[in-house]
């Protein structure tokens, strides 16, 4: 038996943190359902505002009854993905999302309520979660920047204990929609990682010819200069650019 009301699904382009309020009272997200690796489906019996957000697929489900008004309020949060060498069965046997949130909050020194798991799926075990700033935080950007630094440092130092060995971790997509693995920021393939690829990150490094798979920052810059140089030279000689440069250099000059 379900209550009368509309089940709404709102599609979002990426995982985000939201709270749902009815009459200025927050309606808690549905409890985790281990079978589907997401917050439980709407029961339609919990009243107006019953909700869940499903990560990876990035949608929010909200139940709204006739005459009811609800409000969705965004939370400032860091979207984090962690892939662990584990099995889903072992993950849930170890306490699942609740224990995971406990461990994240303990490691970062924050309250557990600020950690929201939005998706758990196989591969080995990937947990997508949001680490949120307090709603009363006067400077949430600084708080979230500090959280990002802390997560990055702990992952690199292998001191972030989440139950299984961390194989990869990222802090969500950047402005260009690209996720960067904290443990493999250059995105090397497993073969490259296993093959002992030499990296020379010294700009203009002299040792940049140690092997065919070697990446040299000096070499990258040189390649960029060689490829962009002729283009820039050509553009700088076109009449429009010459006039633009002239206008910039002599802004007050009348034509």
């Amino acid at each position, binding site marked *: 038996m379900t209550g*009368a*009301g*509309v*089940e*709404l*699904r*709102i*599609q*979002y*382009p990426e995982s985000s943190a939201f709270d749902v309020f009815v009459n200025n009272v927050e309606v808690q997200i549905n409890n985790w359902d281990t079978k589907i690796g997401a917050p439980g489906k709407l029961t339609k019996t919990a009243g107006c505002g019953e909700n869940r957000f499903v990560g990876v697929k990035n*949608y929010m489900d909200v139940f*709204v*009854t*006739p005459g009811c008004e609800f*409000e*969705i*309020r*965004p939370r400032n949060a860091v979207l984090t993905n962690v892939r662990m060498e584990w099995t889903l069965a072992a993950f849930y046997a170890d306490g699942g999302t609740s224990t995971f949130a406990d461990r994240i909050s303990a490691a970062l020194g924050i309250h557990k309520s600020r950690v929201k798991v939005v998706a758990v799926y196989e591969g080995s075990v990937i947990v997508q979660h949001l680490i949120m700033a307090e709603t009363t935080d006067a400077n949430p950007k600084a708080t979230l920047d500090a959280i990002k630094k802390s997560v990055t440092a702990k992952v690199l130092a292998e001191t972030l204990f989440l139950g299984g060995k961390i194989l990869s971790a990222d802090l969500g997509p950047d402005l260009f929609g690209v996720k960067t693995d904290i443990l493999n920021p250059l995105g090397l393939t497993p073969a490259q990682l296993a093959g002992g690829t030499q990296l020379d990150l010294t700009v203009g490094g002299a040792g940049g010819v140690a092997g065919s798979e070697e990446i040299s920052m000096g070499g990258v810059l040189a390649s960029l200069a060689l490829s962009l140089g002729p283009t820039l030279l050509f553009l700088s000689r076109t009449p429009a650019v010459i006039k633009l440069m002239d206008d910039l250099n002599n802004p007050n000059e009348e034509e």
Partner: protein
Amino acid sequence: MGTETAKTVSKTENIHVWGEDTAVKKPYCKTRNGFWFAGGLGGGKELHPKSSSALPVYKIKSAGVWRHTTDFKSITFHDFAVPTIQGCSGTRQYAIGPNVGASDHIHIQNFKNTVFDNVHEESMIYIFDPPKSWANPTDCGNFPCTAPQNAVVKFTGTTYKGAVKASFTDADFQAVGNYKSVMHDTCVKKDKWNAFFCKNTKIGILKFDSLDGDTMDRSVQPVYIKNYSTGLVNKLNNDMDHCWDGVYTCQKRRTRFIAQVQTDKAYTIEYTGTPPGK
């Protein structure tokens, strides 16, 4: 006239509206409605306008408000016995219909104990499609605003009398705007109404808007309301730009959407822009 916060009501009670079913010497040859839907709007007009810019008085120049209800009791429509106006080719008369400028938010129109006296079924109601002329950069953008096709009119306690009657005798029914792809349970299309006739008390209106700071500036439309089980695809536009800054419109349109829904169904909302944060 309504407000964004307080509940306002449009009330009409015990009035009689007559159509024209006999030939007259000099007929007024224009398609007409006996009764226009009432709207809860952000701004009204003086009863006696003092400037020509306020004319015609019926022209809507503000967006619909969030909260508003309508309450029309015991309205009797007489003598809309023929759909056309005699002596005027191509013109029609309808007892009920939306204001010709109702672009943004047609609140649910509640008609209680309405009497159709000598009213032809084809003349009972007509809900026009959003005119293509609304699709321009100064009004609704690249497609018309979508209020008329999401209009919901509810009749309860309706009675029928006179020589000309509708083919149905339902006391309770609904007429809803014509969106192309689907209808609610029990609804049937009535071409002459350009609307659906329904016997479904679960039909309602879903409204949602952006509370972000850029709600008047950033466009996220079209927004699609989809029901994957029925195949419904309702393409929504937001409010018309009603503001004028000298001779130009202000390029300010509230990000608010109105959609007819059935209140026991599941719908997916898909924005074509980044969804509002709140």
